[in-house]
């Protein structure tokens, strides 16, 4: 076989060795599953480019005759997309920044300090990872009311500034930073906080990158909590909540193009981030899943 995949950087061949019959089966499976898995998002983008008439045909039209961006303009009319994107960006960025700082500090304490109750405290932290958000939703909704941050972006952000997964991930990676490095800095008179930010943090950059991406995507996509805490404050809505209003804009098939254009817009930031930086994602899942 001399078929070459143009997309791979190293011009890897389709088959490493002379193909056995089984290898043709594997290739068919990879292609088939890839096509099936990519289909929903491909359909989303294609449909966002169709005319309203094309989206309503039975049987459905697969490819728009003359692709148009009209549906995207319509989305901007129906929802305040600019404001919603800004809200999403503020929520995801500030939450991520908070998670990075709190996780780095606590991860360092759990990895490098010995103190009474360390094991028990860490177990409690890890256990909170297994708690579905709905279990705490009702009293949490009341609590942010007491803090007078309900109905605002602060109400979305503040309860999520610390995160058990982040602490866990940081601890796993900071454990690998040599103690000699820290002691050398201490002899030079560096404070413990200084050590965390100028010695430990630069040594665990891949883990920080992974955590930043995870946190950003998770809080960009998050729906249940913002919906609950922002009830009715439409000017504070992140894009994922504003999008849900597209579905009720017109009933039935009339809104199909609009819905698909809106979905495409909301999907782009997290998916582009992932495709650019997927190495970090994958590495951190592997280390949190297997070494854990």
């Amino acid at each position, binding site marked *: 076989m001399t078929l070459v995949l143009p997309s791979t950087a190293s011009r890897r*061949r389709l088959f490493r060795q002379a193909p056995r019959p089984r290898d043709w089966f594997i290739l068919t499976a990879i292609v088939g*599953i890839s096509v099936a*898995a990519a289909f*929903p998002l491909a359909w989303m983008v294609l449909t966002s480019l169709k005319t309203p008439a094309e989206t309503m045909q039975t049987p*459905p039209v697969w490819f728009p005759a003359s692709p148009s961006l009209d549906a995207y303009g319509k989305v901007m009319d129906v929802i305040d997309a600019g404001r919603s994107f800004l809200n999403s960006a503020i929520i995801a960025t500030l939450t991520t920044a908070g998670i990075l700082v709190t996780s780095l500090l606590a991860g360092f304490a759990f990895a490098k300090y010995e103190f009474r109750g360390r094991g028990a405290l860490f177990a409690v932290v890890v256990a909170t990872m297994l708690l579905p958000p709905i279990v*705490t939703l*009702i009293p949490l909704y*009341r609590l942010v009311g007491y803090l007078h941050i309900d109905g605002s972006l602060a109400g979305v952000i503040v309860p999520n500034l610390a995160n058990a997964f982040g602490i866990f991930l940081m601890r796993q990676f900071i454990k690998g930073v040599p103690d000699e490095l820290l002691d050398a800095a201490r002899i030079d008179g560096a404070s413990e906080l200084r050590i965390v930010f100028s010695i430990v943090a630069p040594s665990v950059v891949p883990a920080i990158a992974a955590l930043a991406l995870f946190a950003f995507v998770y809080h960009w996509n998050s729906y249940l909590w913002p919906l609950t805490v922002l009830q009715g404050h439409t000017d504070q809505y992140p894009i994922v909540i504003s999008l849900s209003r597209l579905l009720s804009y017109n009933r039935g098939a009339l809104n199909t193009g609009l*819905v698909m254009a809106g979905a495409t817009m909301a999907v782009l930031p997290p998916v582009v981030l992932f495709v650019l930086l997927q190495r970090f994602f994958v590495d951190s899942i592997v280390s949190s899943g297997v070494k854990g």
Partner: protein
Amino acid sequence: MKRYLNGPLLVMLAPATVLLGVFILLPMLLTIWLSLQDWSTQTGFDTARFIGLDNFAEIFGPGSVGRDFKTALANTAIYTVASVAVILPLSVLFGLLVYQQRVAGGVVLRTILFSSYMVPMIAVTLVWSKLYSPSEGPLNQILGWLAIPPQKWLSSPDSALGSIVLLNVWQQVGYFTVLAVAGLTQIPKTLYEAAEVDGAGPVASFFRITLPLLRRTMLFSGVIAIINAVQVFEPVALITQGGPINSTNVLTYHIRRVGIERSQGGLGSAMAVTLMLALIVAVVALFAFARRGGEEE
């Protein structure tokens, strides 16, 4: 060398532990306390009135509250078991395709599968609601090419919950595939070489080497898949509203409807506590099952 340092230790630990304490542990304890109270979510915690186990009697009772809750509990159980039962085997199958080195395309497959895990559930919901459309949607058209009659998908009580399982599998399977690949890389290649020398075929190798050595990974994946599955919310909130005929009423949706929208904080908290207990039982059962399987080897 590890150190015992009180001042810096507090500075390091305080932000995370205070935040987790106030916004996760405290609400969890409040949920347990509120489950024993008559309390409206509209009012302060000080208005709560202790009523013992009455909330639990009501949500498991014969009235309409009990009927709806038990349906939601059963739907969530079915949804969770179905999701886990589809996702775990698929993750191993896809993991093998990504991990194998003989045929190119593994990384491409992984990228495509994992991309859908990055897609906001709200967008997944919007897209699939259109894919499922009985007349203008492509899924029934594709089924037609295969001579399969058109399905009602989300609009029939018989198929609605299954349709949500399917879109959930599509969104999540990439994450579990990456976990499976991580597990596969831990298996020493020499085991397979030895098996081949002994004349074992690929099927025998899979069942005698791969699957047993993936047990820890599968246990971890199973726990995460269960926790993820009980969080299903967007497709129900946005499209089915629990219907048709309560067939997609699941706990995250139902608890929020009762506890937030109807402000029945005590009842909603009792439901949340029940969910928490059910999860503990499920996870413990999973561990017990994995351990028993381990002894049989």
